[in-house]
């Protein structure tokens, strides 16, 4: 059973101005999918449609065995967690513990169970020490981890991250990327990572590129990053390291299209040393 499935979905923000038309998209259970695209390509809209925050005009959206309808939004939202972009605008309570409890309270879990959920969620994001901390005193990365914990308290099967690292500093981005990777690998949560940071897409099993409401590229991140010229036409750029290896190749270096620093250095060294040795 697919975790998320979009079938022939059409969506318009304004009368007649369709962003998506006949969109087909699916995610398998346990997958880690990256959704890339420039601002305005429709990637955030995809996330909101999947959670019922927006309603498709035509077509069918399914989350596991449930077809998205007004009546079952509550059920669907128990299965799909979304973490948004702004670390400040997702918390309702001033203390970490209270905010993480919020989701569990909403689904009327008994008090004894909520404590356990909070433990699990804070441990999964590495914020156990901050259980009684004031949210406003945390760093951006820590706040986003609390937001993730707040979503994890509902034990979702799918986690969508809508540009959740866009407003963080590099340290914060690393924190979140690590947490997300662990959630996918260790908790087996299906992850849909929406981002414009090309480096983050490298963690994913599979990536899609969106442009003006259409899915224009599909494949593994490595596959996609090979198609440099195409990416440029969609207003995306290569990760910097991809640009370096590509340019070196164009200048006669026999380096592979790797995106790892050590590997590239090794290959450059081989080229240089073999020449001079």
């Amino acid at each position: 059973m697919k975790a998320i499935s979009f079938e022939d979905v059409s969506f318009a923000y304004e009368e007649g101005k369709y962003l998506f038309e006949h969109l087909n998209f699916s995610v398998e259970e346990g997958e880690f999918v990256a959704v890339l695209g420039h601002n305005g390509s429709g990637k955030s809209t995809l996330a909101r449609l999947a959670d019922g925050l927006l309603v498709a005009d035509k077509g069918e959206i399914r989350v596991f065995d449930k077809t998205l309808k007004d009546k079952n939004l509550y059920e669907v939202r128990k299965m799909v967690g979304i973490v948004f972009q702004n670390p400040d605008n997702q918390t309702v309570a001033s203390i970490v513990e209270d905010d993480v409890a919020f989701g569990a309270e909403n689904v009327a879990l008994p008090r004894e169970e909520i404590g356990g959920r909070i433990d699990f969620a804070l441990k999964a994001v590495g914020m156990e020490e901050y259980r009684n901390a004031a949210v406003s005193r945390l760093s951006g990365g820590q706040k986003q981890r609390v937001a993730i914990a707040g979503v994890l308290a509902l034990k979702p099967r799918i986690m969508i991250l809508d540009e959740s690292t866009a407003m963080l500093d590099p340290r914060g981005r690393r924190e979140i990327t690590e947490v997300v990777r662990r959630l996918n690998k260790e908790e087996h949560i299906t992850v849909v990572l929406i981002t414009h940071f090309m480096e983050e897409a490298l963690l994913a099993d599979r990536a899609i590129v969106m442009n003006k409401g259409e899915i224009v590229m599909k494949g593994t991140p490595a596959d996609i990053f090979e198609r440099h010229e195409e990416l440029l036409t969609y207003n995306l750029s290569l990760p910097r390291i991809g640009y370096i290896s590509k340019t070196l190749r164009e200048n006669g270096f026999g380096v592979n299209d790797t995106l790892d620093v050590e590997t590239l250095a090794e290959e450059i060294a081989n080229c240089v040393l073999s020449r001079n040795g």
Partner: protein
Amino acid sequence: MRIVAERLTYTYNAGSPFRTTALKGVTLTVEEGEFFGIIGHTGSGKSTFVQHLNGLLRLPSSLKRRKKRRKEGEEEPVLRVGEFDLSDRKTDFRALRKSVGMVFQYPEYQLFAESVKDDVAFGLKNFTKEKLSKEQIESAVRDALEIVGLDYREIKDKSPFDLSGGQKRRVAIAGVIVTRPEVLVLDEPAAGLDPVGKQEIMNLLHRLHKEWCKTVIIVSHDMDEIAENCTRVAVFADGAAKYVLPPHELFRKSEELRALGLDVPLTAKLTDALKRRGVSLDSDFTTDGFIRAVIALKTGEGEKP
């Protein structure tokens, strides 16, 4: 306009139990014409320092109440921006702000006027005592909007809130540079933008640097961005400017930077990785500079291992 800072200190909430000393003796100089970068962790003091440059934060000596308590041999802090002496109470701080423009993070969130041209004109009107003529205002606003890459005629009457994110940011920048400041300070100018947006903003800043503002200072977390664009970089840590060096010298100090908990640009990481494999490389740490240096190695022009 040269910027000279010596032994600058600053304490937030002085005299209360919540006091924090954000600056502990900052000394650095920014020459006129530089494209200067400032990096450092949150809490390193970089934002505090930068807010001194246009007088948003003041040296204690320039405020009204001041107990003159000078210890033996302790020198006074110095902060001069061009002709302005910021330790002097009589300095005209508003005139200073006309010459030192400051763009904060996510500047699009500070737009407020009914039309783009009104918002951009706000800065201009604040700084001129005499009433400017309509033509003067229009001309300055048009120049500012055009240099940031917007079409004056198309955009001048639109509400700032109807624009796209990228356009909003450009309007906000126009609103700061409309007074033709000699020094332009930007805090994380590319924050929140996608890769193409980032490149466009940096291109805009270089254009401004060439044609409009003699000196540009950017505060950033992005090491690659700094390596790519700046003539000199100040590394802030623990309330002081630990290093003030051009990129090609600074990024050779990867160990020291990592010890401060900072990252290094990709080009520096590759350079270090190559060094560990016996390949020595000398570059200015920009992406193209690095590539050129590697190519030079292959053709035998670079250092032999």
